[in-house]
Every structure is written in structure tokens, then in C-alpha cells.
């Protein structure tokens, strides 16, 4: 974010941009270089001083040697004079000594003298020295030639005088040299003083420079490293606290780059925080806005820490009233002591738990709640609290209870109805059993009866059987309507069922003296239905045709595929049904005035029963006039196809139809 304060320019900028190893190198090298410089200068200064002192010492040595030459010559001259006076050789000892030592001393002097002026004087001194030496040599030689005499010749005297003059000249020359050397010595001494003063000054300057260098290094270290690290540290602390960072100079060394990274991290962190906050805010708004679910949070001890609108609506507590309170408050007294803890324990153990039961509102009223409690854990697995979602299921609970009651009542009603049917069946059949039974017994011995009695027995049997079939059909219809019909629906081959129905109904048609024939489906199909009931329907339709097809000559069973069903037709070529009567065909006990037709039996329930049976299997039943021939009836019904995957099953026909006489 921060572009940083304006960058320093020039050296400051250059220094700041240097990498840390370079900075370290500079910081260590700077005082070190200054120290080495000081040491060097000290060495040079002390060397100069030593050389100056050496010069002084040499000047003293020269003076000493010159005095020694003078002393040697002076002693030699005195010795010679003594010899001349005494002729004793022992006086010549200094002369010989001088002869021995003088060349050594002179050679030393020759080496030591460097100054041009002094050398000039020294050469004259050498020449005078030689003259003196040779004067002395000559004197000795003269004296030896004269022999042992107490007085000396004038030649010797003049030589003596000359020698004395040479010695004087030597003395003055020595003085000259000494004077010049004295001047030189003074100059050298002055130089030594100068060098020493300079050396002292240099030392002082080195000390000061060294100190300044160290200070500079400390300063550089402080500005270039320490201060910026402190700033970085401050920024890191702000980052930790989530505060905005201080602007950091845009520098290119490691610290600068680190600072830039910290800055970038802070930006990312804040962007993420902002997203998170926005997400949380959205989520909070959603949760708070939910009205149908009470959503709230609990701390690990079960105290309420958040509360939404739904919770307020369901439980009646407002957020400020309930926050911080134990959630057991919502439980009715009988469960308050154990259930809240138990639920939390379950959630703690299983992660989430569900409960359904009575809870209490603020006003003490109860509601049936469905509660889901989920344990909230942080990434370390430590329990942070619980989320609780509560739904008010009171309405549903009531509806459920109502439904349950209704169902129970319906079942009870159904049981009562079945019971009633069963009893009715029994009550009607029992006397029928006696009537038909006795009539049959009578019939067994009919040859013993008079003709009138025989007719009577026939009438009893006929009416009794009619009444019995009436009772059977009626009970059948009732039991279907009571929902108690025992339908055994299964996938059946329609051709098998048709063939069976055809075989069973053959005798009816034969007695009616009609042609009877069956056309199977060219391609067999599986239909869903109760075999026995389907056959019952077909038999009903066929026996109807047999009864009423007085004018026709034939009855035929056919079938066809329609959509997802098979339609079975029972066709005849009789007069058919009048249009006006079609709508009444399937009404119970409505025999369309045909009961008057002589000899036609019927309960008037056959079609009504068939209709109920077909409908209970999900099919339709109906009547249409035949169109393929001028007149004739077409009674048809449909049966739904079994689903393709249902395998055809052969039905064991153990389940026999009710036995009827």
C-alpha cells in the first residue's frame, strides 16, 4: 500500500540500497582502515625520528674521532719532541701508537662524514694530518742521522718549529670542522624536535579520526539497520494486532524487501479479513433473518451466546434477555434436570445429535420442538461450543396426532365393518344352510314325494340358490367397498387368464345353446391383477351374455393391446343395450326391466360387482354397441400392463374360489 516516504537521494539512497553483507563489511572495514592508517603514520613518524637521532649520534662520533686524531697527533708530537731531547726510544711510543691507530680512525671518519662542506674541511684536515705525520717521520729520521748528541742542529729545530706550525694549522682546521659539525648538529637536533612534534600531532589526529570513524560506523549501523529493523518490528506488531502498517521507505536491501513482503502480507491479510467479515456478515444476516428456525449458539457450558429472529419468534425470548443464560431454561420442569446436559453430552460425543420433544416458551407455554445440536470444534479439536437449530413442530405434531387418531379410527371402523360383514355373512348363511340343506335332503328322496311336493322342493332350492348368490354378491360388493377385498395382484399372462376363464365358462354357454369362442392376443402380455377376480368378472360378463342374448347365436371373448393396458371384450350378437339404459348398466339391482324376461335369473349385482372389481384393480369397465356387425353388445374392461421388468409368474392356484353350491 504505502509507496513510502520520498526516497532519500544521493549517498543516503545508495547506502540504504546496499545489501546487508555490504553494509556489514563497510561497518567493520571503516574503523579498521582508519586504525591501520594511524598505525602506518605512527610507524613513518617514529622511523623519521630514529633517523634524526642517528644523525645526531653520528655527529657526536665524528667530533669524538676528530678529537682523537688531534690527541694522537699531539701526543705523537710530544713523544717525538721528548725523543729529540733525550734520544730515548720510549718517548717514541705515542708516535708508534698514532702510526697504528690513526689510519683506522681516519677511515672511520671518512665513512661517517656525509656533509659536503664538512668533507671539504675534512680533506684539508687529512692533508694537514699527513703533513704532520710526514713531518714527524722526517724529524725522527733527521734525529737518527745526527746520532746521539745532546744538542740538536738547527735543521731539527726548524723542523720542530715547522711541525709545531702544522699542528697549529691542524688545530685550527679541527676547530673549523668542529664548528661546521656543530652547525650540522644543531640543524639535526632541530629536525628531531620537529619530527617528534609532528609524530605527536599525527597520533592525536589518528585518535580523533578513529573515534569519528567508529561513531560514523555506529551511526550508519543505527540508521541503515537498527532503526529500520525497529520500524519493521513495529509493523510486524501492527500486523499481529491487525492495525494498518506504518509507511516504510522503499529500499532495496533485504530489510526493505522484507518490509515490502510484510506490507504485502498485511494487504492480503486485510483483504482476507474483509472477505471473511463480509462473509460472516452475510451469514449473520441470513441466520438472523431466518424466522422458521431458531438458530443459536451455546458456549461449551451450554450458555446462550447468539440468538436469531427465529429463536426469538419460537421461544419468545429476546436476544438481550437470554444471552448468557443456560439453555436448560427452554426445557419443561420434568426434563430440565437431565435432558439439556444429556443432549450436550451426546453432541460432544457424536458430533451432532437430534432430539424431539416438548420445550417451553418464555411465557411458559409449550411447543413440540425438533432440535439438532452440533458440537463446534476448532482445528485443534478443542470444543468451542454448540450450534443449536430448533424447529417448532407443534403444528406438525398436532397434525400427526390428528392423523394418527384418524387412522386409528379408520382402522377401527374398517375392523368394525369387516366384523359386521363377517357376522352378516354368518347370520345370512346359517339359515340358508338349513333351508338349502333340508331341501336337498328332500330332493334326494324325490321319488317318494308327490308331484306337488317335488315342485315345491324345486322352488325352494331355486329361490334358495338365488338368495344365496344374492347374499354372496352383496357381501362381495360390501367388502370391496369396505376396502377389505383381498386382492392378490400379480403379473399375469393375459392369454393364460383368458383361457382359464374360457374353460370355466364353457358349461354356461353350452346350456344356453350358443356358439362360444375365444381369440387370444397374438402376442401375449403381462397384466397386473388378481387372477381369481379377473376370472370372476369374465364369468359375470359371459353369463350375462348367455342370459340375455336370446336373439343371437354366439358369444366371443377377445382382447387387444391399448396404450399401457389390455382391453378384454365379451361380445355377443344379440339386441344389445338400449342407449337410454347404458348409463344404468352398472348400478346395483338395476336389471333394466329384464327381470320380467321369463326364465332369466340374475341378482342384478353382477355388473355392479364387476365394475367394483375392475376399478379396484385400477382398470375401467364399459359397454359399447358393436360396430363390426349391425347389432350386438360389447362389454369390455381394461387391465394395466405389468411393468416390463416384472417377470411372469405362474400363479399356484391353491387359492380356490369360495365354494358355492
Amino acid at each position, binding site marked *: 500500500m504505502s509507496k513510502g516516504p520520498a526516497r532519500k537521494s544521493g549517498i543516503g539512497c545508495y547506502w540504504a540500497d546496499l545489501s546487508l553483507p555490504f553494509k556489514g563489511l563497510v561497518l567493520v572495514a571503516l574503523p579498521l582502515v582508519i586504525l591501520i592508517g594511524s598505525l602506518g603514520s605512527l610507524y613513518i613518524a617514529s622511523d623519521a625520528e630514529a633517523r634524526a637521532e642517528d644523525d645526531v649520534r653520528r655527529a657526536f662520533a665524528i667530533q669524538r674521532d676528530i678529537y682523537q686524531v688531534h690527541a694522537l697527533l699531539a701526543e705523537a708530537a710530544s713523544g717525538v719532541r721528548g725523543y729529540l731531547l733525550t734520544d730515548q726510544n720510549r718517548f717514541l711510543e705515542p708516535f708508534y701508537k698514532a702510526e697504528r691507530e690513526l689510519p683506522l680512525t681516519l677511515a672511520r671518519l671518512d665513512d661517517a662524514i656525509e656533509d659536503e662542506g664538512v668533507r671539504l674541511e675534512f680533506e684539508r684536515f687529512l692533508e694537514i694530518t699527513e703533513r704532520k705525520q710526514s713531518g714527524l717521520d722526517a724529524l725522527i729520521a733527521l734525529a737518527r742521522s745526527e746520532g746521539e748528541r745532546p744538542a740538536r742542529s738547527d735543521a731539527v729545530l726548524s723542523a720542530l718549529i715547522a711541525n709545531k706550525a702544522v699542528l697549529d694549522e691542524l688545530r685550527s682546521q679541527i676547530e673549523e670542522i668542529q664548528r661546521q659539525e656543530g652547525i650540522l648538529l644543531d640543524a639535526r637536533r632541530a629536525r628531531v624536535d620537529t619530527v617528534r612534534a609532528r609524530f605527536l600531532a599525527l597520533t592525536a589526529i589518528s585518535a580523533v579520526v578513529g573515534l569519528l570513524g567508529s561513531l560514523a560506523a555506529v551511526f550508519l549501523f543505527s540508521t541503515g539497520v537498527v532503526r529500520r529493523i525497529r520500524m519493521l518490528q513495529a509493523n510486524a506488531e501492527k500486523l499481529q494486532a491487525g492495525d494498518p502498517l506504518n509507511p516504510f521507505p522503499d529500499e532495496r536491501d533485504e530489510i526493505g524487501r522484507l518490509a515490502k513482503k510484510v506490507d504485502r502480507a498485511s494487504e492480503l491479510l486485510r483483504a482476507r479479513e474483509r472477505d471473511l467479515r463480509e462473509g460472516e456478515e452475510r451469514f449473520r444476516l441470513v441466520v438472523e433473518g431466518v424466522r422458521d428456525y431458531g438458530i443459536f449458539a451455546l458456549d461449551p457450558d451450554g450458555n446462550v451466546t447468539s440468538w436469531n429472529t427465529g429463536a426469538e419468534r419460537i421461544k419468545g425470548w429476546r436476544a438481550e434477555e437470554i444471552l448468557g443464560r443456560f439453555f436448560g431454561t427452554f426445557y419443561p420442569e420434568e426434563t430440565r434436570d437431565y435432558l439439556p446436559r444429556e443432549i450436550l453430552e451426546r453432541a460432544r460425543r457424536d458430533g451432532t445429535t437430534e432430539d424431539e420433544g416438548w420445550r417451553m416458551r418464555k411465557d411458559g407455554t409449550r411447543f413440540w420442538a425438533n432440535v439438532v445440536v452440533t458440537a463446534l470444534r476448532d482445528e485443534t479439536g478443542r470444543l468451542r461450543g454448540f450450534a443449536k437449530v430448533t424447529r417448532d413442530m407443534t403444528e406438525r405434531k398436532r397434525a400427526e396426532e390428528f392423523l394418527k387418531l384418524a387412522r386409528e379410527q379408520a382402522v377401527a371402523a374398517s375392523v368394525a365393518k369387516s366384523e359386521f360383514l363377517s357376522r352378516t355373512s354368518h347370520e345370512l348363511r*346359517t339359515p340358508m344352510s338349513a333351508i338349502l*340343506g333340508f331341501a336337498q335332503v328332500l330332493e334326494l328322496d324325490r321319488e317318494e314325494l308327490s308331484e306337488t311336493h317335488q315342485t315345491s322342493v324345486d322352488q325352494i332350492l331355486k329361490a334358495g340358490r338365488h338368495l344365496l348368490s344374492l347374499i354372496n354378491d352383496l357381501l362381495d360388493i360390501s367388502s370391496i367397498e369396505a376396502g377389505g377385498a383381498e386382492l392378490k395382484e400379480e403379473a399375469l399372462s393375459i392369454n393364460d387368464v383368458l383361457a382359464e376363464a374360457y374353460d370355466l365358462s364353457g358349461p354356461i354357454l353350452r346350456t344356453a345353446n350358443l356358439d362360444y369362442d375365444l381369440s387370444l392376443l397374438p402376442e401375449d402380455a403381462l397384466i397386473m391383477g388378481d387372477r381369481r377376480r379377473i376370472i370372476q368378472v369374465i364369468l359375470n360378463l359371459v353369463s350375462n351374455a348367455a342370459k340375455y342374448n336370446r336373439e343371437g347365436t354366439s358369444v366371443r371373448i377377445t382382447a387387444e393391446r391399448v396404450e399401457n393396458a389390455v382391453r378384454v371384450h365379451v361380445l355377443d350378437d344379440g339386441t344389445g343395450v338400449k342407449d337410454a339404459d347404458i348409463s344404468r348398466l352398472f348400478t346395483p339391482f338395476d336389471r333394466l326391466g329384464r327381470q320380467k324376461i321369463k326364465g332369466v335369473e340374475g341378482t342384478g349385482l353382477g355388473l355392479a360387482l364387476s365394475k367394483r372389481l375392475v376399478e379396484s384393480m385400477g382398470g375401467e369397465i364399459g359397454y359399447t354397441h358393436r360396430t363390426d356387425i349391425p347389432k350386438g353388445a360389447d362389454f369390455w374392461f381394461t387391465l394395466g400392463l405389468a411393468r416390463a421388468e416384472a417377470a411372469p409368474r405362474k400363479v399356484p392356484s391353491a387359492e380356490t374360489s369360495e365354494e358355492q*353350491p
Partner: protein
Amino acid sequence: MTSIAVPYEEILQRRILVIDDEEANLLLLETLLKREGYSHIHCLSDPSQAIEKLVEVDPHIILLDLMMPDIDGYQLLDSFRRQSRPDEFRPVLVLTADTTLQARRRALSLGAKDFVSKPFDVIEIALRISNLLETQILYERVQGQPSDASG
């Protein structure tokens, strides 16, 4: 079948106990059985005395109505079964106006040997009874312990 045929006279000597609360039905069955030629027919209209009567008569076959007041036929079926000896073959023919499948299954599972709905065909009933008795006689022959047919 002919080789082991049982003489019809032997069948007619068997004791028959008919239990039904309807006097008319009792009379019908009695009339029918007498007409067939049976000589030992015992009728009982009060089912509460069924066990006593059973011990008293020791019938070869029982014709039982299922729907009766106080004690129903199922209870009696159960008691008969518990009263019978393991090697005994005493068939019970159930006669009832209850035509439901459940009634049929329940009766047969409780030991009834046959089941006929009312109203019944009298000839059919007579045939079923004689068939059961014939089977019983053959069973006794196999067991080698012909029971006392004289009563």
C-alpha cells in the same frame, strides 16, 4: 384302492359327534347322516360341554361349527388337538358360514382335517365324512390296533 377297500358297513358303525349352536343345522346333519345309514350320531348344541361330550362319546369324527357363542370353534379345535394322543387319528371336519380365506387357513392350521363353507351341498358333505372315516380305518389297520367299533 379296491384291494384295500373298507366295507361301507364298517364306516357306518363309526361314532360321529356334531357340534353346532344352530338346532336347525344339527337336525339337518343328523337327518342327512341317518339317511346315509350312520347309527351312532351324537349332537351337541352347547359348545361349553364339548370336552365332556367328547370324553363321553369318544367319537371317531367331529363335525364342528366355527362361529358359536361363548366358546368359538377355534378354541375347541385347539383343545381337541391337545386332548388327542400322539398316535390318534380323529379327524375334525369344520363347517362354517365364514367364507374368508383367513378362517380357512386358521382352522386347517389348528388341526382341522377338512373345511366346508355353509351352505353346503349335502351329498358333498356325506362323501367327505365317509372319506375321512375310511382313511381313519385304513390308518388304524396300518397301526394294527383296531378300535372298538361297537361303542
